[in-house]
């Protein structure tokens, strides 16, 4: 039994039964008795002063119940959305991070910034009211272009942020890095754009806020990756209700990719408004609104340099990055281009000196925050592009160049905070080279050329820091929270088990993998295990799911709780078997007195733990339930090698990926099928970023690519069938040896694609997204072609 469902088994996802048959329960599926509907009035301007708002214009619409504006929120002292990670600038000054009002307080700073909410009997009435609401705007010049935003004549997004700069941060040893560059034999220099992405989870955000005047308490049903954090922010910063009077439920959630970590204006307003109108208030985002209001991802401009000695060994790396944070510094936005980014600039390489400078810059665009990978894809893109270009410039094979510079002994302290605990980078590279038949590439390339196709190959030997994170470490770096996880294992009298976890599943398959762990440990069928998550009234405080942390941190907490449950169960078994506790062995669901045939099974122990007849009351409490708060000792460091092989239609510039090999080291794997699914999805998103996803604002700050007719999401026919494999070095920093797998694909993929395209066209001037036209233009600039013409 355990072999079919235990650790390492390819168990089909138990949650898929309900998802695929339409039985999932998402926030938008919930309808509360007496519920009213909310529609938000959003700024049509990128930058404007908000003048008078004529509520009567909307109240006249039949079915409109109420109109609320920023003034109403202010009157109730509802706070602004904060940024929860404090960053200090080079000069020692704190970051400039004015809060984001849930409804505009006098000014709007991006198209889509909420200005007012209209509550209606029906959705149609609410929308009619929103459309009718007369708002006076005084348009201000907008700053949209990241590169120009820090110039002295740029309009200011926030008066308090001079040069539109939230902070100017640095990491690493500047002097040592300068020295490394001074003695370099070769320096590689590149300029990169990391394009802005719109997250586009399949399920748009939604919320139902409900006030109960009987208990003076609130319930919020919402699309959240971390309901406890939402509750904390709403009570501690937004003053909506104290934590014990606010229950946050995140039911089935259809994808997040980071965008559902944050607390947004809409759900905050729904909860607050429910007490104002004394009715549940529901809001469901539509896709057009999602494009404008979900926090976006990426959006960096980077200049990067790599210093090499005569043997092709890396001496130093330095970067200067401008990170677009949009109109406000969102909840975790300050950590993304800093501690989640620059700390990974050492890649898989032994680099003696690194220096990074990052400016966080306001523009009149939608706020930017963590999106699948959060900072680490940006770092990998910089490092892996630099490495590839450096190899080409020095005439070295890119695989060989990487191998020459790999970190090979562990633990390894990088110059940018991280201490890599375990890995074998050459093992992944070797396996990947074999799988893609690297030695046959030249022949495949010339074959393609005969068919009018440009074939290219590109590597990405990425590393990421996951399992975030030791609370002590993140606290010292400015985080406002600790990043442990909680778990509670409740054994029922019949021996079935409920696991209450602070992690949240929104596509990851926790109901399957977490149950596999429990089944494996306790020797019970998976069907006897229920995973409970996403409800602050059921589950004790937990930190939620992001940063590939649920395996390494969330499951580790369950593992510790399981150890405690087993220890307690052994006590019960010892009592029942009249043996000493130290003599009890537990295996495959049986408690045995070692060296005897006297044993008792799991179910009997569970039952006796609750009947508790004849328990010696002093040392044996009734019941079988244990909890744990697990705080990791280090980040985890998943790493691997992705190789992309593609063909370009020289006539049109269209790129077709023909071959994709990924060899990842995620440490121990609970369910390879689920892990492969995570890698598939991650690669798809990374390919989307590299080839397709183009977020375009016009000069006035209107989002021009605001629908699926204009914003290209990756689809099945944009992707090849992937060949995946794994290498395993156990993670020493948690009890399960897990590193995490949720973001790897999205981190690795963009560099592999662009490295392959630049290989095919013969020069480095290809920006993301490498749309067909961009590639066609690049082909026209290619030196081989210019020479021929």
């Amino acid at each position, binding site marked *: 039994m355990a072999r079919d469902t235990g650790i390492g088994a390819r168990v089909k996802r138990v949650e898929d039964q309900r998802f695929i048959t339409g039985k999932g329960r998402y926030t938008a599926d919930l309808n509360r008795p007496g519920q009213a509907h909310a529609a938000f009035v959003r700024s049509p301007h990128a930058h404007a002063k908000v003048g008078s708002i004529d509520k009567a214009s909307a109240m006249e619409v039949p079915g409109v119940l109420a109109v609320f504006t920023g003034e109403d929120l202010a009157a109730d002292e509802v706070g602004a959305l904060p940024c929860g990670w404090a960053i200090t600038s080079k000069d020692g000054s704190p970051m400039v991070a004015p809060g984001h009002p849930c409804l505009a307080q006098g000014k709007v700073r991006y198209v889509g910034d909420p200005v007012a909410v209209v509550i209606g009997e029906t959705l*149609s009435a609410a*929308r009619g009211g929103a459309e009718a609401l007369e708002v006076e705007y005084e348009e201000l010049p907008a700053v949209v272009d990241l590169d120009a935003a820090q110039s002295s004549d740029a309009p200011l997004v926030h008066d308090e942020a001079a040069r539109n700069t939230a902070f100017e941060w640095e990491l690493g040893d500047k002097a040592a890095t300068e020295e490394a560059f001074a003695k370099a034999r070769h320096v590689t220099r590149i300029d990169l754009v990391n394009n802005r992405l719109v997250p586009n989870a399949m399920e748009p955000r939604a919320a139902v806020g409900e006030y109960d005047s009987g208990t003076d308490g609130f319930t919020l049903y919402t699309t959240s990756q971390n309901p406890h954090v939402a509750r904390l922010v709403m009570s501690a910063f937004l003053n909506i209700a104290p934590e014990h009077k606010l229950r946050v439920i995140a039911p089935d959630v259809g994808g997040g990719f980071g965008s559902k970590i944050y607390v947004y204006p809409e759900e905050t307003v729904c909860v607050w408004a429910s007490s104002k109108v004394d009715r549940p208030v529901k809001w469901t985002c539509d896709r057009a609104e999602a494009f404008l209001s979900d926090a976006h991802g990426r959006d960096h401009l980077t200049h990067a340099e790599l210093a090499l000695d005569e043997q092709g060994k890396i001496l130093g790396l330095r970067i200067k990055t401008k990170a677009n944070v949009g109109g406000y510094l969102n909840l975790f936005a300050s950590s993304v281009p800093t501690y989640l980014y620059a700390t990974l600039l050492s890649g898989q390489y032994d680099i003696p000196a690194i220096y990074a400078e990052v400016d966080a810059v306001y523009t009149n665009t939608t706020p930017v925050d963590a999106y699948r990978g959060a900072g680490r894809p940006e770092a990998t893109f910089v490092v892996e592009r630099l490495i590839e270009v450096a190899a080409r410039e020095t005439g070295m094979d890119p695989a060989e160049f990487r191998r020459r510079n790999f970190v090979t002994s562990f633990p390894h302290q990088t110059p940018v905070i991280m201490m890599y605990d375990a890995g074998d980078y050459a093992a992944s590279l070797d396996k990947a080279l074999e799988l893609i038949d690297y030695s046959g590439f030249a022949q495949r390339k010339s074959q393609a050329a005969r068919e009018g196709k440009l074939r290219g190959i590109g590597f990405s030997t990425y590393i990421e820091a996951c399992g975030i994170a030791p609370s002590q470490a993140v606290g010292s770096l400015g985080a406002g929270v600790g990043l442990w996880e909680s778990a509670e294992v409740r054994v029922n009298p019949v021996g079935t088990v409920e696991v209450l976890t602070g992690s949240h599943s929104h596509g990851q398959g926790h109901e399957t993998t977490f149950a596999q762990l429990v089944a494996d440990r306790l020797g019970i069928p998976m069907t006897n295990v229920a995973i409970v998550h996403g409800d602050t009234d059921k589950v004790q405080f937990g930190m939620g799911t992001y940063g590939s942390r649920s395996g390494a941190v969330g499951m580790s907490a369950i593992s510790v709780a399981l150890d405690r449950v087993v220890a307690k169960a052994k006590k019960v078994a010892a009592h029942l078997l009249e043996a000493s506790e130290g003599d009890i062995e537990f295996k495959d669901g049986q408690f045995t007195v070692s060296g005897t045939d006297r044993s008792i099974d799991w179910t009997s122990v569970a039952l006796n733990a609750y009947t508790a007849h004849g328990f010696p009351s002093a040392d044996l409490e009734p019941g079988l339930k244990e909890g744990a708060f697990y705080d990791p000792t280090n980040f985890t460091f998943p790493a691997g090698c992705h190789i992309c092989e593609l063909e370009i239609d020289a006539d049109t510039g269209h790129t077709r990926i023909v071959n994709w090999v990924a060899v990842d080291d995620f440490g121990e794997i609970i369910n390879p099928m689920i892990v492969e699914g995570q890698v598939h999805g991650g690669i798809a998103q990374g390919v989307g970023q590299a080839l397709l996803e183009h977020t375009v604002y016009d000069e006035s700050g209107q989002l021009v690519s605001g629908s699926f007719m204009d914003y290209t999401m990756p689809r099945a026919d944009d992707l090849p069938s992937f060949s995946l494999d794994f290498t395993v070095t156990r993670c020493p920093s948690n009890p399960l040896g897990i590193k995490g797998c949720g973001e790897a694909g999205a981190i690795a993929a963009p560099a592999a694609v662009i490295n392959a395209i630049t290989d095919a066209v013969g020069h480095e001037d290809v920006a993301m997204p490498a749309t067909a036209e961009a590639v*066609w233009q690049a082909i026209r600039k290619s030196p081989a072609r210019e020479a021929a013409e």
Partner: protein
Amino acid sequence: MYDFNYHRPSSLDEAVTLLGQGEDVKVLAGGHTLLPTMKQRLAAPSDVVDLSRIAALKGIEATEGAVRIGAATSHADVAASGEVRNRIPALAALAARIGDPHVRNRGTLGGSIANNDPNADYPAACLALGATIVTTKREIAADDFFVDMFETALDEDEIVTRVDFPVPRRAGYAKFPNPASRYALVGVFVAEGGDGIRAAVTGAGPCVFRVPEMEAALGHDFSPAALEGIKVDAGGLNADIHASADYRAHLVGVMARRAVEAALEGR
């Protein structure tokens, strides 16, 4: 979406009568263009007349020298039709590459040409094949039907009932899809029929158009090579976030050559 009156007539006469009543009456075919604009509150018809129950508007019929396709026939039905595949394979292939399965199962020929989206596929086929658009009032030659961006020769109260496609000697269509919508960024339909060669371009300009220079060249030598060096002027072509006018002009040449290849291969 605003409130509106919904009608579902079972005859064409009834539909025409309904079109004459009400302030702003729209006919509804597949709804793939009309409904999204209504949902976004960009269109607000007072009345919607659903054509889906009018049998006379559906179906595919082969006649002497032509294929007649009812206006309410879905793209999927055109793509799957044995008549179309045998007699005008390029037209079946075109229908098979419109949008995605949802779009092909709902969207209709009549809706597509009545809408005359500059990036739609069918207008290129109609123009290159020299089709005749039959309406409740008259017959209109494709050359006169497509007037300008989203503009046709149709009157407000006129319904397209079918399109008659003459069977060509050979024809081919090549499309470079917009990666997001899958509409044509550029599509070129080339056909050799009774009145010679026609090459029609969609996606590139504000409205489908013919390229006489290509037609002349192909008249001498129906081969991709005959098109080498013929350039379409980028001036006047569409430029948007998906493609510059230069790129579109370039793609017209590439797609035209590929359309000729397809025609030669009978695809």
